[in-house]
């Protein structure tokens, strides 16, 4: 219901509470009214032109690592290949 677009902050304009972000090479100006202390290099999640939260990069890395751990744990019986169906 709520399309969110992640983007990396290229430029911060504190005087009007906006930031320029980049998503797959596309730049866009968004309001940072709901997210304090935005810095260049931060990742923001944007909905209808408003940043709704800063992405926690550390948490993102933890999650990826967790998945990689789950995948390296070859539990017996888990050998079906749904990907090829």
């Amino acid at each position, binding site marked *: 219901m709520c399309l969110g*677009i992640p983007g990396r902050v290229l430029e911060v304009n504190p005087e009007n509470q906006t930031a320029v972000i980049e998503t797959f*090479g*596309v730049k866009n100006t968004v309001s940072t009214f709901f997210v304090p202390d935005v810095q260049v290099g931060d990742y923001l999640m944007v909905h209808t032109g408003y940043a709704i939260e800063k992405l926690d990069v550390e948490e993102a890395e933890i999650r990826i690592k967790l998945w990689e751990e789950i995948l390296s744990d070859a539990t017996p019986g888990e050998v079906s290949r*749904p*990907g090829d169906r």
Partner: protein
Amino acid sequence: MEDRLILLAHGDGGRLTHELVTALFLKHFGNEVLARLTDAAELHLDGGRVAVTTDSFVVNPPFFPGGDIGKLAVCGTVNDLAVSGAEPRYLTASFLIEEGLPLADLERVVASMAAACREAGVEIVAGDTKVVGRGQLDRIFINTTGVGYLPPGRDLGYHRLAPGDLVLVNGNLGDHGMAVLAQREGFGFGDQIVSDCAALNGIIGTLLREFSGVRMMRDLTRGGLATAAKEIAAAAGVDLWLEERAIPVGDATRGAAEMLGLDPLYLANEGKFLTVIAPEEAEEAVALMRAHPLGQNACVIGEVRAGKGNVYLKTALGGTKFLDMLAGAPLPRIC
């Protein structure tokens, strides 16, 4: 019953357009040539064959990154002839102009058409101009009709498709539709996405000269790859299986499409075409296309299988989904 009106969706190239063509135009105009519903009509004159096509251009806005309505009017018609296997030769041009259009804008459009004609090797040999009162249309509309020469023995079409044939495209999809939509709606990243508007008769001519296994071609205009693929599958009575990961989409268009909740496979192109080709020739054809400036990201995106007219997309995760014709012009989805 509600009073039925013509909606914008009747002109978007999707299902409603299809309904209008078959239920209204074919009903009244029906003849053997028209009934084939090909991009261009094949006519036999004194033993020679010519292809004829016509198209009207109403793009809003008339100027957009990568082109303008004039360039589009030439390229669009040239491409319809080229994918039919014809060598485009002559165009006519009709201008419908709103009172008050700056002459400089008109000259810009006309100069752009002239440049596009030189590039495509075609000439505008007849034309017409009408001016209507303010508000009766938006700035400028252009109709072009194109005539092309069909060399002896050239035979492209649905009837040549066979299971095992491969499906190629000549590059990144969705750029034109995204560029125009972004520019029209003022979404704030308009200039970063550039229309792919280009005349394709050069690259197509090379392909047709080199490869006898080209079965058919389609330009991927309104409704995008998905709509064209569905039309081909339905008309030929085969299934098309496409690989999501193989389908090329540029970063900027992909990013903008994500922002607006749009699927690039349903966005229009003005410089992209689909080719169905015999499998043994596919690899060389891709190499040849990649050597051409309008085919640098050419690749195989899928294959023809025996079937009932469906288009399946194999997703990156290994799932399959079904592609259908566009239903209504793509609208940004946000909330």
